């Protein structure tokens, strides 16, 4: 069975989804969702172990050899991503039972898990496939299911947010399919590896450049690079808590992977970065995201929305790492992708606990919450410290490599801007701390209880991971630097 892992981990949740619809039972659907998530985790860990020595797994679907058939291609980079996605999914799904029970109407529970399974299948599919069109298909599967998931939020504004995301996401997907189409036109292949091999032989550069531009904009819409992030804050703020945690930790991260894949594995450095000032554009937009989104975060009146803006800023750190286009820079970007996923998953999960008890997470309502929910509040403090980049958290490791990459590239002023921007994180994180700890709890808050254990434990698992990988980053930095080396190898 092991040779079929690359496809099984995608197919299992994909099959589970219609089964859930047929069963029409929330509890059964949840069990199925747990089963497929954990199965995906086991399989992705096995895949990571297989490619750890630098090998590449090529899986031909239906035994049609590539480049004619669809190829699934697992190397160090996407194996790393698969583990991330399935790990987050496995933790979130345990948490989801209590949270969904509170936030989603009972008769829609099985639909929720259906959409969740589809979204997981889509994300895993995007990550493992080696085929351009297949990638688009999975992108649509994950996107459409996430529109539904967001719309399930109990706030009516969730519908508007979902619609906004639908429009923006569809534009993004369209751009991506146009880009892939142009590349198909010029190379005659949809297999990404094959495409990479044929691209240097293409004489007419203009359509290739157009493809690059379409793909860049399309993917950057999906990964919410500033200023294409407009869909994200509302979507995160009004979606059900579970959905926010899951999407924040996985969806944008997978999109970053897609960008990496196209830039490094398909276009290769020579044509792309030489022909267009991609590096500078990425650099400027990343810096803008870091400063502008963090500043906007400071002025939010809803904690979830504040952390959503923080996500936009943190995505800026990831793309900043990529913009250095060096081994250290890529390592920084990839390791921050992992670290930020852990941090934000933890934070949104903890906020979900508050939302469960209180019904919302607006600043004006959560005063003094630390008295009644001490574990949740302290977890949020620790997650916040990781966002700031305090040592002994994963955020510190990311920042260390980002600054190092900046200094290596000789741009000391960028290094300085990186450390300076973390001051903004201090401000918005400490706003939560002060409200949670210093305000007197009002009558509603005073009556609340701590979040249930089945939500608290998964959240604290994530917090524990934030601290563990902050103290011993051999696995994460090791994996990221290998992935970076593999990406650059494909280029040079």
């Amino acid at each position, binding site marked *: 069975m092991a040779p079929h892992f690359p496809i099984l981990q995608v197919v299992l949740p994909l099959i589970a989804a219609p089964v859930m619809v047929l069963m029409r039972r929330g509890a059964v659907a949840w069990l199925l969702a747990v089963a497929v998530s954990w199965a995906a985790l086991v399989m992705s860990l096995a895949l990571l172990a297989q490619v750890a020595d630098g090998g590449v797994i090529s899986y031909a679907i239906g035994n049609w050899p590539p480049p004619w058939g669809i190829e699934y291609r697992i190397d160090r980079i996407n194996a790393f991503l698969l583990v991330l996605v399935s790990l987050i999914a496995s933790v979130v799904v345990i948490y989801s039972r209590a949270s969904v029970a509170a936030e989603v109407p009972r008769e829609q529970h099985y639909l929720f898990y259906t959409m969740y399974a589809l979204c997981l299948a889509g994300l895993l599919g995007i990550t493992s496939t080696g085929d351009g069109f297949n990638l688009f298909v999975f992108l649509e599967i994950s996107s459409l299911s996430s529109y539904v998931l967001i719309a399930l939020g109990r706030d009516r504004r969730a519908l508007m947010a979902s619609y906004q995301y639908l429009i923006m996401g569809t534009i993004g997907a369209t751009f991506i399919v146009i880009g892939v189409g142009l590349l198909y036109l010029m190379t005659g292949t949809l297999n990404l590896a094959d495409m990479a091999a044929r691209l240097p032989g293409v004489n007419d550069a203009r359509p290739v450049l157009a493809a690059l531009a379409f793909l860049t904009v399309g993917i950057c819409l999906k990964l919410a690079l500033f200023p294409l992030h407009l869909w994200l804050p509302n979507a995160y703020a009004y979606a059900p808590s579970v959905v926010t945690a899951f999407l924040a930790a996985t969806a944008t991260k997978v999109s970053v992977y897609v960008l990496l894949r196209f830039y490094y594995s398909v276009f290769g450095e020579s044509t792309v970065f030489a022909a267009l000032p991609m590096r500078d554009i990425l650099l400027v937009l990343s810096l803008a995201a870091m400063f502008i989104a963090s500043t906007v975060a400071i002025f939010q009146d809803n904690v979830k929305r504040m952390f959503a803006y923080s996500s936009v800023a943190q995505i800026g750190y990831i793309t900043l790492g990529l913009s250095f286009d060096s081994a250290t820079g890529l390592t920084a970007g990839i390791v921050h992708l992992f670290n930020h996923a852990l941090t934000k998953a933890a934070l949104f999960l903890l906020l979900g606990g508050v939302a469960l008890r209180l019904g919302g997470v607006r600043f004006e309502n959560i005063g003094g919450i630390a008295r009644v929910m001490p574990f949740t509040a302290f977890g949020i403090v620790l997650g916040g410290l990781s966002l700031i980049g305090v040592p002994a958290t994963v955020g510190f490791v990311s920042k260390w490599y980002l600054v190092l990459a900046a200094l290596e590239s000789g741009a000391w002023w960028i290094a300085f801007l990186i450390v300076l921007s973390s001051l903004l994180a201090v401000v918005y994180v400490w706003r939560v701390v002060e409200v949670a700890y210093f305000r007197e709890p009002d009558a509603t808050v005073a009556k609340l209880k701590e979040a249930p254990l089945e939500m608290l434990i998964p959240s604290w698992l994530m917090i524990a991971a934030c601290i563990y990988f902050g*103290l011993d980053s*051999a696995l994460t930095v090791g994996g990221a630097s290998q992935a970076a080396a593999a990406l650059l190898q494909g280029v040079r």
Partner: protein
Amino acid sequence: MTPAATIIAALVVPLIGAVLIAAAHRAPNARETVTLVTAALLFLLVVSLTPAVLAGGRPGVTLLAVMPGLALKFEVEPLGMLFGLIASGLWIVNSLYSIGYMRGNNEAHQTRYYVCFAGALASAMGIAFAGNLLTLFLFYEALTLITYPLVTHHGTPEAMRAGRLYLGLLVGSSIVFLLFAIIWTWQTTGTIDFVQGGILGGKVTNAATGVLLALYVFGIGKAAVMPVHRWLPAAMVAPTPVSALLHAVAVVKAGVFSVLKIVVYVFGVDAIAGVTSVDWLPFAAGFTIIAASIVALRSDNLKRRLAYSTVSQLSYVVLAAALLTPWSIVGAALHIATHALGKITLFFAAGAIYTAAHKTEVSQLDGIGRRMPWTMSAFAIGSLSIIGLPPAVGFVSKWYILSGAMATGQWGAVAVLVAGTLLSAGYLLPIVYRAFFLSPAHAGGHHEAYGEAPLTMVVALSASAFGTVALFFYPEALLALSRQLAGVG
């Protein structure tokens, strides 16, 4: 126990203490016993490391690989030994004092207070024994964060504002300047270990050395070199034993300790002796000494006066380090210890006055020495130490700093040191004079009845005053460690 195990124990014991303190939150007597036992145990652990270090050993241990090639690493060298001894020794006295103060003033959240205190000591041990900049930085930040609940202990809007300033300046300066400097050092030298003779020598240009030094000095906000000193007076809103922790036991000491350690082990005294771009440092330190002393002179609030006195005294350490002579380095290391003893005595006295008589302003202290003779005698001894007069230990450190300055003919520094001494006499001696020689004002003719503060407080402040005098006569251990640091046999 092997030295490595002792080092780990010194980090873990306060943390276990913290857990036990939290567990005993319903039984205050058991809780305070845990604090005292933990403090004593920690001190014994640190003392047990001393013979090996005095014999020239450098016990160490490497734990987790935080990042590839960068480990959490501990190594005990003379300066760290000195700081470890001071912090752990004063924790015992401070705990005794805290018990009297916290109960005497009916403070809320006492369990949280003792837990954070133990956590602060664990962080201080981590700073003292750090074997590289990464470890130092980690525990430096931990110390800031764990002391935040102490500074904001009262939970009032004023405490919250002070907390903002405290956290903003300390975390801000450290993540913007200090972290930047550390990564820069790592990027240029490929190491951030503390090495005798420094690691930067010959690796960075003249101009870059000066910039790097500035990033370190101002990045270490805990050293309170102006203008990053504002957090210290603001933090005075905390209960007095916390001020003692900030000023004497751990926080500011961790700051000047880090500056001195970085000058000696990262820059290397000899390596930067001829570098012109670092010449700004004596001026910055000298300015802080004088300016802070003048502010202290003009403050009527006792704790504020003591706070600015600390800002000024800390820059003695920075100035001594900046003089870059072996004797001044000896003086700098000694001054960390001597100022700690003197200042903790002064804060203890200020807290005792507040607890017993509810007085906070210098102008209210007329004749208080007659009602609180122990407290004010201790205050007088502490003052002598801060001014640098015998028979208090402060004299010893100032002597070395001054000899270093004179031996190398740095007359500007000599002038600053003399002026600083006069100013400190000017802001401390009048308090002693008022307390003992002026008769109490009887406002409205009504007579207030108060005597000494609770017993544990008086014991604690007498002990620290006694230590201030005793170390003047027996400074051998401190001297031996400081001389080893400076490499003068």
